[in-house]
């Protein structure tokens, strides 16, 4: 059976992609930001911890989705996803290979579990998805994992609540554990941490709040489910709301977690960089409350 082995939280600041692509990651400015990923780069390619598939939760930054269609949750079920041209040419990174079998299984399971997620067969992926891959795997000819993109609307208000994100994570965990193939799956929550890219208040950073958020991802606590949007906005800047995506990752890890690695650095461009590697201690998630999600007959149909 497939199982979620670990969760990773990671900012997806575009300038990190730029720095990597232009060989500037050793510069004084960027060095401390990248150094905090050295541990993870070694760990993630070790035979015991290397995942087969990553469910990569991110937000599209007006690249694949314009204002015509605004899905709250969208899951990439295609064979592959090409890096987007965000205005200065596409990043010179490998094409992202999907895992359509698992992605479609998750998509079907989620609908039966009453998470009516949009299914995407073709889309380009922007820095929100490719920067975390670069931070974990560095300069590679081919990404060493399959990736299932899970795009979340955090641009047009309202984005999903923290509680909804956490519950989606729980539903993803149930979906993964009912996939018959033996696969090691990681789930990554990306974006954040505190930052504001607009208006006279731009440049806002809140180290204390960010670190409390990182603390709240470990252990058994579920307080982060109930942080309202307005608190993210006031305390962490208008783009700090991206942190709700980390809660999908946390929800998927179950009842309790421990941190294997943690990194925090200010500033990178306009943003506070955060990164955490989490391991489930007790991966139990509540059973599905829905008729179809809890029905062996319905589950057999999508197996």
């Amino acid at each position, binding site marked *: 059976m497939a199982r979620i082995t670990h969760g990773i939280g990671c900012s997806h600041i575009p300038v990190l992609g730029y720095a990597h692509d232009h060989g500037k990651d050793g510069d004084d400015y960027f060095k401390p930001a990248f150094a905090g990923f050295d541990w993870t780069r070694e760990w993630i390619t070790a035979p015991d911890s290397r995942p087969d598939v990553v469910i990569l939760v991110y937000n599209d930054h007006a690249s694949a989705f314009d204002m015509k269609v605004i899905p709250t949750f969208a899951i990439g079920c295609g064979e592959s996803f090409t890096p987007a041209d965000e205005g200065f040419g596409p990043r010179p990174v490998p094409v992202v290979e999907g895992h359509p079998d698992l992605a479609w299984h998750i998509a079907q399971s989620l609908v039966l579990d009453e998470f009516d997620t949009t299914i995407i067969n073709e889309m380009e992926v922007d820095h929100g998805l490719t920067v975390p891959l670069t931070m974990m795997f560095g300069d590679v000819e081919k990404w060493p994992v399959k990736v299932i993109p899970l795009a979340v609307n955090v641009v047009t208000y309202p984005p999903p609540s923290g509680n909804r994100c956490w519950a989606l994570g729980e539903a993803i965990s149930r979906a993964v554990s009912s996939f018959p193939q033996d696969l090691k799956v990681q789930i990554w929550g990306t974006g954040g941490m505190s930052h504001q890219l607009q208006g006279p208040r*731009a440049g806002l950073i809140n180290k204390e709040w960010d670190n409390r958020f990182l603390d709240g991802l470990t252990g058994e606590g579920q307080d982060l489910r109930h942080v309202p949007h307005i608190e993210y906005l006031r305390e962490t800047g*208008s783009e700090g709301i991206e942190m709700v995506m980390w809660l999908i990752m946390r929800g998927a890890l179950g009842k309790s977690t421990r941190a294997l690695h943690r990194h925090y650095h200010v500033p990178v461009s306009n943003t506070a960089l955060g990164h955490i590697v989490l391991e489930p201690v007790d991966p139990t998630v509540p059973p599905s409350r829905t008729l179809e999600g809890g029905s062996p007959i319905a589950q057999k149909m999508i197996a």
Partner: protein
Amino acid sequence: MREATDIATYLADLEDIPGTQVFTAQRARQGYHLNQCAMSLMKPENRERFKADERAYIDEWPMSEEQKEALLARDYNRLLNLGGNIYFLAKVFSTDGISVVQGVSTMTGMSVEEYQAMMMAGGRSPVGQRSIRENN
């Protein structure tokens, strides 16, 4: 922190943050063509046409004259007030060949050097910047 329990309070709270335009449905509707126009600059051929004659390019979009003027002037605070969203407007930064930091700094009343120095010193504190109503 007070949490909204109805949509009117929820939306009113979003307008209570100093120096911030939350991208609400109202702004999304007002800025629709502005944001779609900015988005079109993801294509290299559109960037070329835009650079060749900005006014002619944006005249192809049914934007308000105010939005057009603000876009030509790269007046980003005004664009936010007129329904622009920063992730869409960032395509204009890229087209102009400026970094996100450079583009963002223009909205703060600081020079790019002052803005970068603020970020190097740990960024802008939320103290006094959380709420217009509470002035905290």
